[in-house]
């Protein structure tokens, strides 16, 4: 049996160069230090994306966009064998993926892993987070239950703030003046064709960069000499632990999907009044609250525009951090960047909690 396997391996090796890959993986190392725990979060984000991909394809087998959207999701949830589980896993993994990306992004930020030569890793990563959020936004409407419908309806009003082209843009995204079956078609196309087509190459680029530059170490480790630093081989040691972490994540996901299956509300009815307490998903709550605060401070159009300007400026600062915190020394600039990170993290947490409290 062993000899059959070995001969198959050498047959494949001759054609695919497997040995080279194994040797490469064996020589690749991962740093070992007290903050190495944070290295798993990029892998976890990838894991949840793979789950999304697999469950998304399964949902695609039964989902019908357009006027049948609600009915098809009802069938998936109640009639199709294990449909409830696939849908529940898809919805939970979407949320967990965004949690994992957020944790990954902040750990990268505080490890200062955006500095030279990893700037493109940071930019592509932030872009992937932004796209993951759009994935969430577009996916939310697809079941067309009343919450999805009204929430999307309110959400689309953000476009009206953009001067001049705002209303036209909103019509374009909606496929008309109201959220309708055409909106579902557009969001569906965005969710399963456009976004994956853009997301996958950027993800590939991001992973290639990680591979090219290796794991960054936090400043405390950088200060140590080569001899003092420790590392372990990527294959099989780190990879096995990475998979173990995936297994932990899979376990958490299963518990959530089993114990708290995703609900389906009543079918959307545009003639009905909006249900109580409409609010965005948790990862948009912070922005939602910031806009509300500015709206309260400066009534009218001014507050809305100011809110958006402040938010966009913050996002831009965040995105461009590799350009102004670019030296390796632990100087004033590096400290300021760390404070900026802490402020952003606190602001996100506080405004999110605030938003839920005043709902």
């Amino acid at each position: 049996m062993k000899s059959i396997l070995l001969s198959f391996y050498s047959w494949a090796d001759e054609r695919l160069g497997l040995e080279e890959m194994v040797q490469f993986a064996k020589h690749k190392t991962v740093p070992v230090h007290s903050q190495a725990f944070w290295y798993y979060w990029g892998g976890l984000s990838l894991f949840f994306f793979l789950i999304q991909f697999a469950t998304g394809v399964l949902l695609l087998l039964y989902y019908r966009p357009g006027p049948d959207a609600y009915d098809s999701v009802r069938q998936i949830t109640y009639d199709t064998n294990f449909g409830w589980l696939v849908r529940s896993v898809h919805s939970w993994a979407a949320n967990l993926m965004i949690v994992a990306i957020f944790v990954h992004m902040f750990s990268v930020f505080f490890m200062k892993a955006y500095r030279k030569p990893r700037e493109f890793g940071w930019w592509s990563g932030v872009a992937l987070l932004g796209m993951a959020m759009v994935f969430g936004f577009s996916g939310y409407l697809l079941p067309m239950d009343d919450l999805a419908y009204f929430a999307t309806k309110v959400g689309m009003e953000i476009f009206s703030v953009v001067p001049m082209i705002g209303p036209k843009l909103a019509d374009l995204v909606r496929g008309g003046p109201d959220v309708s079956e055409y909106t579902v078609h557009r969001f569906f196309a965005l969710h399963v064709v456009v976004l994956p087509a853009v997301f996958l190459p950027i993800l590939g680029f991001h992973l290639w960069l990680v591979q090219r530059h290796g794991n960054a170490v936090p400043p405390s480790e950088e200060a140590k000499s080569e001899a003092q630093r420790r590392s372990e081989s990527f294959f099989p040691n780190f990879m096995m632990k990475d998979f173990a972490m995936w297994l932990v994540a899979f376990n958490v996901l299963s518990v959530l999907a089993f114990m708290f299956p995703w609900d389906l509300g009543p079918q959307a009815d545009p003639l009905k009044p909006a249900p109580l307490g409409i609010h965005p998903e948790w990862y948009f709550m912070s922005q939602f609250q910031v806009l509300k605060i500015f709206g309260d401070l400066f009534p009218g159009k001014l507050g809305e525009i100011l809110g958006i300007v402040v938010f966009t400026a913050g996002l831009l600062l965040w995105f461009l951090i590799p350009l102004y915190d670019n030296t390796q020394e632990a100087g004033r600039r590096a400290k300021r960047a760390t404070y900026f990170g802490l402020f952003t993290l606190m602001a996100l947490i506080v405004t999110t909690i605030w938003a839920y409290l005043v709902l």
Partner: protein
Amino acid sequence: MNYPFWDVPHIGSGWVIGIIAIFHMMIALFAVGGGFYLVLAERKALREGHRDWLEVLRGHSKFFLILTGVFGTVSGVGIWFAIGLANPEGTSALIHNFVFGWAMEWVFFIVELTTAAVYYYTWGRVSDELHVKVGWLYAAASFFTLVIINGILSFMLTPGDAWLAVAGTGQEASRFWQAFFNPTYWPNLIIRCLICASLAGVWALVTCSRIDGGKTPELKTTMVRWSAKWLLPTFVLLPLAFVWYLWTVPESQRALLQLGISTIGMGMFTQVTRMLLVVGLTSGVIVVVTYAFAWRSPLEFNSGQALAVVLLALIATASGEYTRETLRKPYVIGRYMFSNGVRVASVDKLNAEGYLMHSVWTRRGGDDKLAKGEAMFRGQCMACHTVNGYRSMKRLLADRNREAINNLLTLLHDYKPDSPYRAFMPHLAGTKEEIEALGDYLAALTAAPASNEKTKVAEKQAPVISPGKL
């Protein structure tokens, strides 16, 4: 119905017990397994000359003393407070039937707590032999606390025919040992012992993860691997013990599990089956993850990974405890007392004379039907349901009109042998008038608001703009 009702909004009183109990179980089972771990590790270290182990074990025994002696005992007392408030009738029945059992339990508690403190404070102050003896004394005392509490907890699921034959006659004490060594006693004990061993390993890994592998690689490797081995017996034997356990639980509860398994595809399966799947999955994951993190790479094993294993153990313990509790439904003491404190034998009397007549803490007289209905709800539903939180009545009855609610209550009141509700709902007791008052109250709870004022206000309050996905 001799006690007032405890209203815990949103989560319900059951979850107050649940949260404290899950936290307590994580520690209490560690207190038993951890005692054996400490003394066996110390003995191994002395026999094989690993003196460097002793310093780690000393640190672990400090962690052990604080966790079990402070958090374990406080949460243990917390359970008494919570069960006394949430289900006073059931607690009273347990106290009356097991006075002698509780007395023994507390004697062992005192020995356990004392020896735990002595064990920690005498490191290096008494001879090695004497220190190991103190360790054995602790392990034995803590094991006996498990032996006794297991008799009482398993009694609640399966009191056994012998005890049930005398229940309510005043002769219960004559069947103490039959009640104690009830049908599920032994499988339950084996399952708990296995969990104790694995939790001893899980918590020891937390201590071992803090050893500096760079400075003392040999120490870290041997201790991490030895601790990881404590998870192995559970992995191999737990499934077998569980099959044995299922074989001893009442047929009706087994049927509930089987029904659950056959309806997984449609997603309609029972909560208890869901929990059981979580226990199985998580137990397997714990072993694989421990192998990958601890056994394969003991030197790099860090506290983040150790805490991931603790988190998984918490999920498994919580799900296991929930399964045990749910399997007992609709009783708090099998076939003797329903989960809302109504004795099976009292139902006929309450039907004839009135449930509220016998509830000494409810206001008598008056014609307010809704108030009567609310009193019925508090007495007979609130042990498991809340108005709008966990097992929310508003949600569960949302699609039912007054007539449908009445039909449901009639089903629960008649409690016919073929009623599907018998598997998890208690027998609804009370006169016709009381049941009707309960129906009115429930219908008023779920009725739509008289006008749509509220929704208009909500629309008004919704911000004009809101970013991103809602």
